[in-house]
């Protein structure tokens, strides 16, 4: 998906994990995924470089769909769809 497409997505859940370092964002994502339904889209806001690779890998491994990452000023947004 392009950055524009990602930005235009309607998300069912937004997790702001910018205040934490690794493994905080991953743990926050793991917790939040249990709170949404199948097919729902979740965005995770993080400023932790390790998370940028961790969450997409984790999402795919768990059978969810990693949709893409959008760079913002000083942080990024990771988009995923729950299986």
């Amino acid at each position: 998906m392009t950055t524009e497409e990602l930005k235009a997505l309607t998300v069912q859940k937004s997790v702001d994990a910018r205040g934490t370092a690794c493994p905080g964002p991953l743990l926050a994502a793991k917790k939040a995924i249990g709170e949404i339904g199948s097919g729902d889209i979740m965005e995770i806001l993080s400023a932790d470089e390790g998370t940028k690779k961790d969450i997409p890998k984790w999402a795919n491994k768990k059978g969810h769909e990693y949709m893409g990452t959008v760079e913002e000023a000083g942080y990024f947004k990771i988009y995923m769809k729950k299986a």
Partner: protein
Amino acid sequence: MEENKKMCMALHSGSLDRLTGAGVVISGAAADDMDVDVYVLLQAARAFKKEIADDYEKLPMTENEDIKEEFIASLKKLNVPTWIEFFEMAKELTNVKIHVCSLAGKMWGGEKVEDFVDLVDDICGIGEYIEAAQEADVHLFI
């Protein structure tokens, strides 16, 4: 459903930095839906005693006591949970069991599960640890 992968950790160290590292590893395993069995041995058992855990900043560092202040300050600045909080989070996420070795417990005056922080599930013998180590997909000694 596929069975969860298993992690077995022999947690021997009672130092602040290693306990924090163990907490990060366990919570990572929890995020990956692993079943985790932690066996708390020797020095680590001391850190799990209620009165010690309440004052975790007094725990020693593994190698260099001179960097303790910097270590603690950095953890706080980066908003990193305490080692106990990591263990608590991991337990919330997945099947994490904390077993205290009976000998280790006795060494620090803890014979019963109530002598330790609430995280502790039971007191065990070495046989249980060996069995878990044999069955584990990942085995760590920290």
